[in-house]
């Protein structure tokens, strides 16, 4: 456990430069944004643009002074949870984003769940049926699934499932879990295809490894061999992929939230982008960067839980 703790601390420390980079990029985005934010703020609010008003707005936004100073100030603010105020509503950006974060998290969780529910049976069955017609159909389905743009799938689902069918909501998240159904499917479907493919390939690869043969030679039951020996090992690369998937997932939420009017941060962000609502965009980018980095950290940790080789390498074991 101590090894784990050490590792965690070390990973967290290596995150520092990355996070600095992330915040810097975020800051620069705002700083390089075309137009004077103060002027934008005024026009957004239908307030007359006069030099006095501009000056006031500038001070309020903290957009005067040299760049490093502004960055330092901004970073201090961010550390205190202050991300500025939204151009459109005048509310604090942090409150706006945090208020919508649970919805996005729910959606992402739903997407992941759908992904696993679809991918695991598909991938396993395809691997066990290797070479049969079923496997080929499975492979093709998976490839087709991965090729359908999620926005298109979402529209199809709305038109042909939600609207004709009673009780399946078209949009929003008011109806409880059932509202989550279609957005999750839209989000998880394409990824499920990727994972089913990957799982199939991994299972096949693992199933022909020596230790499976060794397990058979020792008279273990087939269920034990697949469950205990094949599956877990086939999962390890799957976990590695999760890091990349998180990116797709977070990116996907943007589209899905827009189509299904899901009140999450993704939609907020798109609207902000369209609206050139820079503080909100900035907050969103920062949040996504943080979330992505944290998720990858967690994935890394779980990866280490699954694979003792990586876990032990720095600690007790030998050095490769």
């Amino acid at each position, binding site marked *: 456990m101590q090894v784990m703790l050490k590792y965690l601390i070390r990973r967290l420390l290596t995150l520092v430069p990355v996070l600095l980079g992330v915040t810097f990029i975020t800051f620069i985005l705002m700083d390089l944004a075309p137009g004077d934010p103060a002027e934008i703020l005024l026009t957004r609010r239908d307030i*007359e643009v006069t030099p006095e008003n501009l000056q006031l707005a500038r001070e309020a936004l903290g957009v005067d002074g040299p760049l490093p100073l502004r960055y330092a100030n901004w970073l201090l603010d961010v550390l205190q949870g202050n991300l500025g105020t939204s151009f459109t509503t005048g509310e604090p950006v942090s409150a706006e984003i945090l208020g919508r974060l649970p919805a996005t998290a729910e959606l992402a969780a739903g997407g992941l769940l759908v992904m696993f529910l679809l991918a695991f049976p598909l991938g396993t069955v395809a691997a066990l049926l290797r070479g049969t017609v079923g496997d080929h159909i499975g492979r093709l389905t998976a490839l087709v699934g991965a090729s359908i743009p999620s926005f298109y799938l979402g529209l199809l689902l709305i038109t042909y499932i939600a609207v004709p069918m009673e009780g399946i*909501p078209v949009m929003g998240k008011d109806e409880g879990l059932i509202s989550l159904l279609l957005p999750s499917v839209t989000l998880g479907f394409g990824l499920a295809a990727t994972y089913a493919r990957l799982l199939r390939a991994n299972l096949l690869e693992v199933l022909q490894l020596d230790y499976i043969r060794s397990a058979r030679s020792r008279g273990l039951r087939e269920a034990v061999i*697949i469950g205990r020996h094949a599956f877990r090992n086939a999962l390890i690369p799957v976990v590695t992929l999760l890091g990349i998937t998180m990116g797709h997932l977070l990116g996907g939420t943007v589209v899905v939230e827009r*189509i299904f009017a899901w009140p999450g941060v993704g939609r907020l962000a798109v609207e902000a982008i369209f609206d050139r609502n820079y503080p909100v965009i900035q907050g969103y980018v920062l949040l996504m960067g943080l979330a992505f980095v944290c*998720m990858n950290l967690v994935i890394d940790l779980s990866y280490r839980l699954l694979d003792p080789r990586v876990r032990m390498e720095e600690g007790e074991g030998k050095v490769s």
Partner: protein
Amino acid sequence: MLSRSFFKIVFLLTVLLLLSVTVGCEPAEDPLEDLEEDLEEETAEEPAEKTEQILTIGVGRDFYYGSEDRTYLHGSTNVWEGLVYLDENLEPESWLAEDISLSQDEKTWIFQLREGVVFHDGAAFNAEAAKANIIRLRKHPQTADNYKYMEEVRATGTHTLEIELKKPLPAFPVLISYFPSAMFSPEVIETGGTELAAPVGTGPYKFADYSQDRIYLEANPDYWKGEPNIDQVVFHHIPDEGTRVAALRAGEVDALADVGIILPEQVPELEGIPEINLLTQEVLTSIYMFFQTENAPVDNPAVRRGISKLLDREELVNSLLDGYGEPARAVISPLAEYWIDDQESRYDYDPEEGSRLLDENLEENEKITILVNSSWAARWPLSSIAQYLQTELDKLGVESEIKSLEMGAYNEELGKGDFHVSFCPWTGQDPDDFFSSWLLSGSGFNQSRGVNFSSEEADELIQEAVQEMDREERRKIYFQLQDLAEEKAPLVPVYHDLTVYATRDYVKDFQMDFNFRPDLFPAYLE
């Protein structure tokens, strides 16, 4: 075995997501959730017992404006009321002011306020309260223009409010009708400032909460007309036009009500569904094509007129709008019939004339930039109109480029003035509203939309008209101004909106007026 590993993974992922949720700080308490839970519980339990009626209205824009706005919420929410409203003929109508009269010198307007009206917080509505509001509105950048001729505001009786103007202004009640005379409880008005702490008005519905695109309203039992029928009203902001209609079809919203809420092309989708009532309403909104009048080549009025001639408004309304609209023949909404002269049409389709004008006045290789606001495009087919215009220009060999931008970006672009033509919806009240917003040098929309039109003649006429006490005389000046608008064409009307809106069949007595403000008081659910 399979399942064990699987659940391990699912568990890990769940932990991961929870972690991401709790990143930063704990989510603020969510009053909405309680509310929602309440709603859910109550709707779910015993439908037989008619406990709470909830009406959810889908709208295409956010009606929540926030504390810095003149009214905090849009008027359609029925949370606040103004002193004055307009009737069908666009004449002032009493609202919170029971009676409006003019003093002898024609400079002081006397508003007799309705008695027995209380704000949602229990504060009484009286002349002092109204005065505080007027003072705030006058300071407020969004409404300062409406009060620019005001000299003084006085509470002369408990329910008598006098507004003294610098000069006679016959249209003053119209000028301050609806938004510019919105009344809020003095408790929420920032002393000496313009901010509102909360939208505490006098309307049939009280503001309860705003969260996740929804404005939650509760019935005001102490409303001066009596208690409204529906207990809760929710305004749900659904920016996407497709989602809006889908939501109505699926019954997730009970009504779609706002200007441009249903695009004409969506009508076939809703027609023939027995559970849905499709309604139409002529509104004061018109779609204009406006020019950046300082940019060559559209700095030349002839070019502007030429471009206008290329639009076959009849065809446009018939095909693109499926007839839901009226081809524009004047700059002012046909609802203001009185102010429009009898000419057949000032803006008819004349491709030959247009082509001639452009041929004569356009130099080679001049590229026209057409700006489209895509936020509006979700409520009016502006992008299609732009593409139509592009094609027509193309036929004459004029190159053009369409830039499609959402609200914020669009406004920025307008500010920079890097465009030639754009389209916008605009809702006016009375003719002065139109002319002093669009034609007066340096005035509101003329400036903020980047038209930058300036004409001394127009300025003089507008000043003159607004002070002209004689209605007939005033009308004539407006005819003159319409001639001038046609001649200079800083902006030309395209069509007048006929808004399609809809409700589920169980929503009764639900109607939108020409200001697309739904009257929620009489509405009930069956």
